[in-house]
């Protein structure tokens, strides 16, 4: 691999320098500071903080609920994107614009709105309660909030990929005798899989880092509905900077492992597609 390749934009040296500088100042430096703050702790103390039942519970909830939310978005985001791409219906542009709403709302507002609807006496909550389903102040509420705020990522990643899937491909499969499910599994899914993975990754990343919307609907019961970002804030409020940093480092590591794995998966998928194309 060579650094220098002819391209339309001149000045590789300048742009590469800028890229390195920007990433360093904006991403690496703060992260390094975080790791450094945690590194000043004694190893035993670090372990005590990050392996306390409260911390472990929060990791489980943060990553579990985020994974669940990203999965839900992968499925329903696919359906939404499909509907928007494939069908012409009145108000389609409006629905399309609505997808981006969770981007624009302050997340705290989303949290308050969700709580209003799903609290015990809320619009929907009051009908769920007799069924024994509690949403607000449970892990279900956390998942719901994370699903809402990360949904646009899944839809927006899938839309361009679905536009690429010509209807004729499905028609060809149909005349060749394939049923709908077979066509979906063998034709549509392989074609949009990279985009689906991207959507999942972005959704997941967004959900893990979410704070504002969750704290309203979760109820913040330690061990039960307390997410890691909140726990970090609690440590900060008690002026326990090092404890907060320790939790932050663990989150950082876990997130990095998950995102890196997903990126590898995608790169592998792209390579396979490239092989298919050449």
């Amino acid at each position, binding site marked *: 691999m060579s650094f220098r390749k002819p391209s339309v934009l001149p000045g590789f040296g300048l742009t590469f320098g800028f890229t390195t500088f920007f990433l360093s100042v904006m991403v690496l430096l703060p992260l390094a500071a975080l790791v450094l703050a945690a590194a000043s702790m004694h190893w035993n103390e670090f372990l005590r903080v990050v392996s306390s039942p409260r911390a472990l519970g929060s990791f489980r909830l943060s990553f579990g609920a985020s994974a669940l939310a990203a999965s839900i978005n992968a499925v329903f985001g696919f359906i939404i994107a499909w509907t928007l791409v494939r069908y012409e219906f009145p108000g389609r542009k409006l629905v399309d614009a609505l997808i981006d709403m969770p981007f624009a709302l302050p997340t705290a507002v989303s949290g308050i709105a969700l709580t209003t609807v799903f609290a015990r006496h809320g619009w929907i909550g009051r009908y769920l309660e007799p069924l024994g389903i509690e949403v607000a102040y449970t892990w279900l509420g956390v998942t719901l909030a994370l699903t809402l705020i990360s949904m646009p990522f899944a839809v927006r990643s899938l839309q361009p990929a679905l536009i690429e899937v010509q209807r004729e491909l499905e028609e060809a499969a149909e*005349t*060749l*005798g394939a049923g709908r499910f077979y066509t979906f599994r063998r034709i549509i899914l392989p074609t949009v899989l990279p985009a689906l993975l991207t959507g999942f990754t972005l959704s997941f990343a967004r959900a893990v880092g979410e704070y504002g919307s969750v704290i309203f609907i979760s109820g913040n019961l330690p061990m039960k509905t307390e997410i890691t970002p909140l726990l970090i804030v609690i440590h900060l409020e008690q002026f326990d900077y090092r404890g907060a940093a320790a939790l932050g480092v663990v989150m950082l590591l876990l997130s990095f492992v998950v995102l890196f794995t997903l990126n590898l998966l995608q790169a592998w998928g792209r390579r396979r597609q490239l092989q*298919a194309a050449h």
Partner: protein
Amino acid sequence: MSITLEQVTKHYGGHAVVNDVSLEIGDGEFFVLLGPSGSGKSTLLRAIAGLIGVDHGTIAMHGRDVTRLAARKRGVGLVFQNYALFRHMTVADNIEFALRVRHVRGRVRRERRRELLRLVALEGMDDRFPAQLSGGQQQRVAVARALAHKPEVLLLDEPFGALDARIREELRRTIREVQRELGITTVLVTHDQEEAFAMADRIGIMNLGRLLEIGVPAELYSHPATRFVATFLGDANLILARRAADGIHVGAATLAAGDASAGAREQEVVAVVRPEDVEVAASRAELGSRFVAQGAVDELTFTGALERMRIELENGAALLAGADNGAVPHLQVTRTQHEQRGFVVHPGQSIAVGIRRMHVLPTPLSSFTACAPDEAQAEALTRAPLLTELAARMKTRIATRAEPQLGTGAPASVRTAAFVGATVIASGPQAARHAAWLLEAGASELLVLPAAAGTPQHVLVHSMDEAVRSATLAVSASVLRHVPAEAQYLRELHAGQSQGELAQQLARALAAVPEPMLILGITGLGGFAACCGALLEGGRWPVLIVHRPAGRTPA
């Protein structure tokens, strides 16, 4: 019969895209559906494939009704213009797709794949991906894939559209060879008449959702039944002629009526003259064929084997049915090298024009004449949107005729010049009186037109008398070939009713559908005003009256 379509109709947004199509395709036949874009040919093909449902009519394959059967159970193979190959699969996987779906064993699959690749001349390409192949090769893979499950019918939707000329030629030959070898019934959709001629056993020509004519290529070319087919299959001069008892009068010539059934009624007809059937010479005496008119060479184009010529005829405006743009039409002529050497012409040169061969179309609506009490009103009427549209689609002209007597109420028995083609008047308070006067004076097709009338969506047809029935149907068929409307035959109305009741029923039927047009066949003028007065004067819909006075032989 391999494929049988009966009265197949498909709507999109209230518009009939495929309109009442009936068709039979034989076993092993190569059938080509030919038409301009938007004619409904691809929609019809998709309906046969089962990819879209039909609103009305039935589709049968080998005697089995498949109208409601899903595409995957119909046993058809479909090839698309843009190949529609599965790009994430190899050529082998693409071809074997239909077999995998059917859980065919691996060894059998591989054997079938080898056989198909040999058939389309792509041996050894098994492991390539579609993106590694040229367009022509990709389409060959698509053909092989469509044949893998041994379908009973092969459907090709503009398969050569995305390929350049040389590849196209090659692939055409391959497909024809494969089709012959397998003896598979094939339907090809195309807008290219040369392609249709090259491949078809039979051609069906579609326009505006209707299947206009079906026939073997040579027969359709030499004996088209409609103006559209005559002009769509190659170039054609449409000439207005007069059919009389002694033959057909074209300009200065009188030609034998030929096979066209000669009626006793003298009438205007449309003759098709192919550019190669026109003869030019320095003078009338040197012509080998009948002299038609004197003309001047307007334009000369050399195209290799043939020389194309545009001739301005001396009485061209009267002789030639109009061009689309309303300008005075020219006569198109093509000559072979041999003919060119015999008689060299230059632009501007005056020449004698003769016709070697012509074909008379059995169309009842030859041309339009806008008629009004004065020239200005007649002129205004020629700009009515429906009239200009009909004339453009029928490739005919709109003449004007001032008839001062029309407004005065003077008796129509005063002999006037004959009314040829369809006469057009404006609807309005005077319309019924004008109509009665014109029918009395001998107009046999009379269109009463509201100034704002647009393209009709529904054409209601009714004949008052059995004697005028066939003439009414012939006129209706001619109109329906040129507007994308649905026909509705009002059979439930009976002659036993009083004229007033009948008029009310017609008005009700017209009010029940959007954008209607009425075609009404009548024999006598007794009670005409009572019946039709309100229909014509309301100005809400166009009414075409077909008048065949009792006692005369219906044409």
